């Protein structure tokens, strides 16, 4: 049985449709990420599960029970907000104890439960302090402790890491995943950050303009994007119009400008059902720059010219021109990056490409 089921739900505000009719099953104990740019409907979905918004259509089931008419305070959910939303007039311990007061927890047991939760988020000694005396990262840990101490059926996280500094964000990402695995709570995580989604999720739901673009495991969504939007949103991709000239049981042959004929494994083109117009998806990380005369091995090699170099330390992002097409490549750096204006060869292994219907 799935922990959360969205059954044909839709949400409209007046004439504006925030979420188009869609369904989703979230397995017990899973970490599911709703990923998309702002305004894609991911937060609307989360707020409908939480009970902060009523769906215009469809049903929401939590633990197999329909909860459309169950008010938020009876849904037993843990909710964590981007801005922490800690009660500023209560101490950390009082914040964490807040939800326990409304449950059948014996008063004598509350301090222990609070302490266990604070231990779990690795802030055992801040119970007497007020939220504003803590750093942003610490406040978010307390918000997490407050949400999980009630042993919620589902943990809902609304961009919980977005307000944190970049370094802290990566630490918290690991920490959050550790805690989630430890307590095994079904988690719905909303973010616009693809690296958070890829790193943490069991399953990613990519959304755009109120529609679900793709649902799948991180690798699946990354390797075989179901649409141009997904290909571009999860990392940088080059999308090149091509023709599908042949389909066999294990590969699909595409005829693309610049690269010529490429045989792509069929699992990387699951939606390309017929010959004819197609789109070749070339991840920027898979397009390698090499010296003009370098051996290519099993890769296709085409000449190109470097136009712009965007140096990022351990990696570099190039914009290169091959013929009259500009392509993006993100390569790890061995020694020095290629300078703008250099002649290079672009190497691409066909098995690294994916294909979409045209």
């Amino acid at each position, binding site marked *: 049985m799935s922990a959360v089921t969205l059954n044909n739900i839709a949400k409209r505000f007046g004439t504006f449709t925030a979420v188009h009719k869609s369904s989703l099953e979230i397995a017990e104990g899973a970490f599911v990420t709703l990923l998309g740019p702002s305004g894609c409907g991911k937060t609307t979905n989360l707020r409908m599960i*939480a*009970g*902060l918004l009523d769906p215009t259509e469809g049903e929401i089931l939590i633990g197999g029970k329909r909860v459309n008419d169950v*008010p*938020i*305070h*009876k*849904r*037993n*959910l*843990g*909710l964590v*907000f981007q*801005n922490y*939303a*800690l*009660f*500023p*007039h*209560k*101490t950390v311990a*009082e914040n964490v104890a*807040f*939800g326990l*007061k*409304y*449950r059948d927890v014996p008063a004598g047991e509350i301090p222990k439960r609070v302490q266990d939760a604070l231990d779990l988020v690795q802030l055992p000694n801040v119970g007497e302090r*007020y939220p504003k005396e803590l750093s942003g990262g610490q406040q978010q840990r307390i918000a997490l402790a*407050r*949400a999980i101490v*009630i042993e919620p059926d589902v943990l*809902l996280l609304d961009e919980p890491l977005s307000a944190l500094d970049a370094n802290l964000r990566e630490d918290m990402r690991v920490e959050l995943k550790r805690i989630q695995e430890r307590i095994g709570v079904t988690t719905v995580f909303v973010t616009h950050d693809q690296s958070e989604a890829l790193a943490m999720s069991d399953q990613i739901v990519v959304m755009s303009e109120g529609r679900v673009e793709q649902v799948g495991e991180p690798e699946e969504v990354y390797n075989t994007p179901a649409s141009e939007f997904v290909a571009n949103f999860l990392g940088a991709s080059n999308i090149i119009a091509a023709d599908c000239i042949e389909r066999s049981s294990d590969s699909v042959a595409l005829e693309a400008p610049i690269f010529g004929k490429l045989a792509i494994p069929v699992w990387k083109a699951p939606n390309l059902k017929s010959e004819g117009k197609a789109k070749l998806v070339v991840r920027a990380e898979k397009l390698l720059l090499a010296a003009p005369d370098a051996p290519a091995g099993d890769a296709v090699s085409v000449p190109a010219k470097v136009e712009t170099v965007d140096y990022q330390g351990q990696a570099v992002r190039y914009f290169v021109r091959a013929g009259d097409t500009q392509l993006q490549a993100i390569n790890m750096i061995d020694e020095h990056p290629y300078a703008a204006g250099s002649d290079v060869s672009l190497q691409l292994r066909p098995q690294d490409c994916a294909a979409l219907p045209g």
Partner: protein
Amino acid sequence: MSVEAREARQPWILLSPALTAVTFLLFVPLLFIVVYSFWLRTATGADQIGFFLDNWQEALTDRFYRDILLNTLKIAAITTLVCALMGYPAAYFIARSKGNKAILLLLLMLPFWISYIIRTMSWINILGVSGALNTFLLWVGVISEPIQMLYNEQSVILGLVHFLLPFMVLNVFVSLDGIDTNLEDAANSLGATRWQAFKQVTLPLSLPGLAAGGLLCFVLGAGTYITPLVLGGATDAMFANLVFEAIITQLNWPLGSALSLMLLAVLGALVLIYNRYLGMAQLMKGLG
């Protein structure tokens, strides 16, 4: 001159127009009042200059003044309570309304465009013997002769509430508007009903606004003399009416000065207590 010295002077330069006005229009006249209060009005009607404690003795020992002072504080307290009870829900409604907040606030300010005296006098047309309410009740047949609804303590309180409610609503609104709505959502998600979330989270966080509105209503209410003059009866005089009476009617400036300083002292003490209490509240936050 160094940059630091110029920067240090800048606040004083910017403050100087306001400070000049406050000094000459408030502190200097107040000083006059203090000096006056020690003069003595003689039987001839002339003021005898000197240092006499007679006015102070009269003001502080005469039970008549004490009773009116207590009555004034009582009326101000009732008015403040009514304003709080009526104003809080209104402020909450405005703070939580989406989109038309600006219009609602404008409507709240609208009464200020009409003179306070006119607004007070308008009640005569509503509650008077030949006013709208009596005329209506007579016409419907609920009553056979007009009811006297004016010129009592209730009509004074009504007039004061009418005058002071917007101050309460604005103060409470400002504090409610600054509270993150996610806090209530968080409380709800943890199992609190809407009412429990309000009691546990929103109300405590809005108390500073309620206290500020309360102080303003109380001080303005206790210092008023127009409302009891227009809407009160012969026995409904408030303390400021005594000052008015002493200075304007009896031309007894020394006694009027002593009385007005007395009211100032009482209300000033109240402001100090409020400050002290709010200072404490910051420390006691966690215990609530």
